[in-house]
């Protein structure tokens, strides 16, 4: 098995204690940092698909994302200044009045693993704060808003509409337990995802369209 294949397997199985050494060995063996990164991103795509299909569960996705993150740490010094792999910046938060963060954190991990530079605004984020974050950060290509409660769905609508009013061309993706594709359409979002795995797929689709 090539070193790069080994790295892919370690991401998919979430072996965060072994991956740093494997990435270093792949670099020593002559694999390019960019290729290793792309291999890890592809592995996380597999993980996301398996999660969406119900083949794996939240912990498997968490440990895979953790392994990916440990692998990226090894690559960072080698790739410093090379932004070619980034899909751009994504601002993410759970909307005002909603304190749920687990689903949002999963999406942050999956989008980061897919190649986005993530800015996590946390939970209970007012609509204006999303707009400020778009203004304050470089190369923002996507805003992701999460809402878990039926009671905070109006806040989701307000967030999307406030972002769109300030930045009409900005892509906005929404998700969370009570959200449906129809509701996403109704409030003017560009995309909807039912889970963290498909959020990564949809986010890439929106910014590369």
């Amino acid at each position, binding site marked *: 098995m090539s070193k790069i294949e080994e790295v892919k397997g370690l991401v998919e199985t979430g072996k965060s204690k072994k991956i740093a050494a494997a990435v270093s060995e792949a670099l020593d063996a002559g694999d390019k940092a960019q290729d290793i990164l792309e291999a890890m991103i592809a592995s996380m795509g597999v993980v996301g698909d398996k999660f969406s299909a119900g083949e794996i*569960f*939240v*912990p*498997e996705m968490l440990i895979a994302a953790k392994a990916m993150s440990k692998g990226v740490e090894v690559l960072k010094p080698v790739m410093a200044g090379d932004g070619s792999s980034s899909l751009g910046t994504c601002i993410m938060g759970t909307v005002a009045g909603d304190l749920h963060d687990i689903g949002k*954190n999963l999406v942050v991990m999956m989008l980061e693993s897919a190649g986005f530079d993530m800015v996590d605004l946390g939970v209970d984020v007012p609509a204006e704060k999303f707009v400020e974050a778009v203004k304050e950060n470089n190369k923002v290509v996507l805003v992701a808003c999460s809402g878990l409660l*039926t*009671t905070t769905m109006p806040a989701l609508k307000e967030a999307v509409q406030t972002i769109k009013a300030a930045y009409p061309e900005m892509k906005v993706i929404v998700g969370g*337990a009570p959200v449906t594709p129809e509701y996403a359409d109704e409030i003017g979002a560009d995309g909807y995802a039912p889970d963290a795995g498909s959020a990564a797929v949809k986010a890439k689709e929106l910014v590369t369209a």
Partner: protein
Amino acid sequence: MLTKRQNLMETIKGGQPDRFVNQYEFLELIREAPKEAFMTPMGTEVKNAWGITIRWPEGQIGSFPVHEKGYKVLDDITEWREYVKAPSVNYPAERWTEAIAHARAVDRDEKFVTAFITPGIFELTHYLMGMEDALMSYYEEPEAMHELIEYLTDYELAYAKQIIENLHPDALFHHDDWGSQISSFMSPETFKEFILPAYKKIYGFYKDNGVELIVHHSDSYGVNLVPFMIEMGIDIWQGVMNTNNIPELIKEYGGQISFMGGLHSGEIDFPDWTPEIVMEHVERACKECGKLYFIPNLSQGAPISSFPGVYEATSEAIDKMSAELF
């Protein structure tokens, strides 16, 4: 007319109930029993004897454990012995007085005197560590996780002994949320390895000591966990959401376990609720799920609603369906 208790037993044993069991009517929850604080009033924060901080922010619909920097009890599962210290379960006799009086006042022919336990074993692991760390620890440090769960189980058993000695409950209502709305938090294999053995001990202990009925709350998806629920001794899964296809579950498992829920709080219990919305959902649930092995109920883990009037309107709608269908 059957008593509430008789009607419940007819429903879950496949007999001849004379009406729908109406939500929590058959359970008399003895909530005065002494225990550690895992809830706090809106706008307040409390740190319990486990060291877990519980906060209910203004404007939210419930309490949350706090895991911000500096608040986690346990940062590294491998060091659990150093940081996790179970509180004593030997509460002074006077702290049981109110609960004992409440239990004695219940007509046990009519209702089940019910011990109320929250949080459960899985919940306690993530209350201590935060959800992400807890879930990863099941996979990354299984040995330490087994040890911690055994420790938490021993604590629960010690507390169960106190509950039984003081209250002689007929039923147990035990919380432990095992999933999101669309999936279980962990795989069935992981659940079987870690959670099932703990609950076989806990629920087995209650049943060996006179508890007739185990009602377990998990307002989540959980189809893949039902065989384990049966194996650990659950009689009624409360909080079962519509994402589980309840009619199919009843068809497959009715007689081994019953299902209490089918009324998703998120669809009924919201600020703009109306009696008509409640009626529509109750009618659908009652007609789809039928009269046996099913108890129509909001998915919330207590006989309350988040918004005033919803619980009562749901009970009224169930009575109407009983009048129509029985």
